[in-house]
């Protein structure tokens, strides 16, 4: 038996392919949009993964350290490290700020990590080039997305750092690349004011009548306390095997009077609160795009059918069965959908890395997309089939 659909496609294959490609591009955009949404969620999760922590200890009554600013004293970790069930506790600071290299600056999340060696909480879990930090000062590990290369001298506030290692996919929840530097430098960078501000502060202090007493060293001591910083943003805690994070968190919350979040709560904060609105925005757009794609597919199939309404009339005239005509249209619709999906998937895959923020194409999304495309094609072809079957065979000879 000859395939009517195949024959018809071969008859005008150029048009058919082009239509398929056009449709594919539209499907590609939809897939990318789904990828953008997944990417946002993934960015939030990857941030948590990369910190290597089971628990986040932050300032009481805050949503820190990612969703809200939080500061805790930098010696609190000692008290937490000795609690039962705590394997490791480490200070960490996070601050999104410009990192300069020459006359270019990159917005990056500067992360201060303790000098505990690779595998300590907060350290980048894997590198794509170079090495981890070995010096306690002036070395940095930067994400590839910053555009920095090994050996680059970058500037954070007034200090210069040498890039010794590169990471991939180390980003903040808003997609800013991370730059890891030793904790001391990061504490300084976070709380250190610029030189003008420090000078003004000194002058102000000197003019304060309380300190304007002829007591040797008083003013120096006051200025020193003003410029010192012993805060960090959070304490990352790794839990020992066999302990539940919740059980370890409880005494910290209760006796240390600090806020503690576990992985699920942190995810809830990041995904549920921090990126909720923008994610919904993208989700809305995705829904509209899917609707538009469905409508366009339906229109295309309808138009394709209407284009050959004469031929269908002829087929009816020569006594072709309805089932054959329906199969013709349905097969064409499905073929169009498959071509569209293939082209869409390819476009999406190649387009994804070009986006400035991470686009995550999940196989499950692609699969869902594929079936959605098929369903839409089938539904659209049903309308076309209805029209085709109702065509008057007389049209074949008429006007």
């Amino acid at each position, binding site marked *: 038996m000859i395939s009517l659909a195949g024959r018809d496609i071969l008859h005008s294959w150029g048009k058919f392919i082009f239509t398929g490609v056009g449709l594919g591009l539209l499907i590609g955009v939809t897939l990318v949009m789904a990828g953008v949404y997944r990417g946002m969620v993934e960015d939030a999760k990857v941030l948590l993964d990369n910190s290597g922590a089971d628990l986040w200890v932050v300032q009481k009554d805050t949503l820190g350290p990612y969703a809200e600013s939080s500061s805790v004293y930098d010696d609190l970790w000692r008290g937490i490290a000795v609690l039962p069930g705590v394997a490791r506790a480490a200070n960490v600071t996070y601050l999104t700020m410009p990192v300069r290299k020459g006359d270019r600056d990159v917005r990056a999340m500067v992360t201060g990590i303790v000098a505990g060696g690779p595998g300590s909480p907060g350290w980048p879990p894997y590198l794509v080039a170079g090495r981890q930090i*070995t010096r306690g000062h002036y070395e940095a590990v930067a994400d590839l997305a910053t555009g920095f290369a090994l050996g680059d001298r970058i500037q954070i506030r007034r200090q210069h750092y040498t890039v010794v290692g590169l990471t*991939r996919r180390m980003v903040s929840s808003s997609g800013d690349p991370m730059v890891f530097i030793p904790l*001391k430098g990061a504490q300084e960078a976070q709380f250190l004011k610029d030189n003008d501000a420090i000078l003004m502060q000194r002058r102000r202090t000197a003019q304060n009548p309380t300190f304007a007493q002829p007591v040797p060293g008083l003013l120096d001591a006051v200025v020193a306390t003003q410029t010192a910083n012993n805060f960090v943003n959070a304490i990352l805690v790794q839990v020992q095997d066999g302990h539940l994070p919740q059980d370890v968190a409880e005494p910290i919350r209760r006796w240390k009077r600090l806020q503690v979040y576990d992985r699920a709560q942190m995810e809830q904060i990041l995904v549920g609160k921090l990126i909720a609105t923008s994610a919904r925005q993208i989700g809305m757009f995705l829904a509209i795009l899917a609707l538009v794609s469905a409508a366009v597919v339906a229109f295309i199939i309808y138009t394709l059918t209407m284009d050959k309404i004469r031929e269908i009339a002829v087929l009816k005239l020569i006594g072709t069965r309805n089932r054959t005509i329906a199969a013709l249209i349905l097969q064409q619709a499905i073929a169009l959908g498959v071509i569209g999906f293939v082209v869409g998937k*390819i476009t999406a895959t190649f387009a994804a890395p070009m986006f400035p923020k991470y686009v995550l194409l999940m196989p499950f999304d692609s699969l869902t997309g594929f079936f959605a495309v098929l369903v839409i094609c089938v539904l659209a072809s049903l309308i076309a089939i209805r029209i085709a079957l109702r065509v008057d065979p007389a049209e074949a000879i008429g006007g």
Partner: protein
Amino acid sequence: MTHLPLQRRTLALLAVVLPLLALFVYVAVRSGPLAPVAVTAITVQEEAITPALFGTGTVEARYTYKIGPTYAGRVMRLDVQVGDRVAAGQVLGEMDPVDLDDRIRAAEAGLKRAQAVLREAEARNTFAQAQARRYEGLRAEGLVSEEMFAAKLQERQIAEAALAGAREEIARLQSDRQALRAQRANLRLTAPVDGLVIARAADPGTTVVAGQPVVEVIDPTRYWIDTRFDQISANGLQADLNAHIVLRSRSNEHLAGRVLRVEPRADAVTEETLAKVVFAELPQNLPPLGELAEVTVALPALPAAPVIPNAAIKRIDGRLGVWLIRDGELAFTPVALGASDLDGRVQVRRGVKAGDRVVVHSGQALSTKSRIHVVERLTKASP
């Protein structure tokens, strides 16, 4: 006749659809979870490493002399400026003596008066001695009564006592004058050593309290760097180790130095160990005090042991280890780490041996199920 064009169409269609399908399959396999993870790997070798410690510090003078008055007072004059070289004993300035000079003059006048009193006492004494001697003769001849002789003896004793008193009064007044002169000299601010003036805290006319420094002098031949090392990475720090020093203003210049001492007391708040590092040879143009310096202390070289780059170390399920490649398969091996150097090379005490293939860099986090694809490097050529 109709067969050929149809076939050509079929071929053309296939020419479009087949590459599309091939591309699709490639895309499906090379991206997403099915794709192999690109990694770089090295073969572990036994190497000797030279660990080093890295710290930062500030340039400080070893000896700082804060020169100021011992009493509250007003600065009268100050002859030196910041940057002046001064010699030991040189008068740098003077405090206002207020009434001290007058008191010295009064003391001198008092002394002169006391000397006059002394002369008077001496005269009285000489006369009283002579009288006593004369009356002694007269008494022997029985010309004067015993009572009169006793009176003359008493007069002599009184004169002697007055003389002694006058002499002591002079000694007292001399000491008083001496004390005032010493106080006067104490108002002069003098340099205790050959040095360099680094601060002039008060100008003439300023009232200062006791102990408040007016001039600060340092010994410019004795500089050291007050260096801080993170306690975590300060193992092995001890006196007499060689160090090299990089000053912030001269970052291309490496200066030789030596650890003078490690402070017995560490900074508990900042979790740092403190050490003093001295220059082997002081730079020609002196760095300003307080300048930031980076200090790298070289520790003795360690014997050869299997060495891995620190980028290879991962923590999986709470254990530190590395990913070994055996027959193209990944296996996580816990390792016990030894010393490391500043280039990120870490000696392994247990876990891997020379000849093992170890994953260094990877495009994403690995698991035992990851398929890997070993490449030369993961990023574009780095400079």
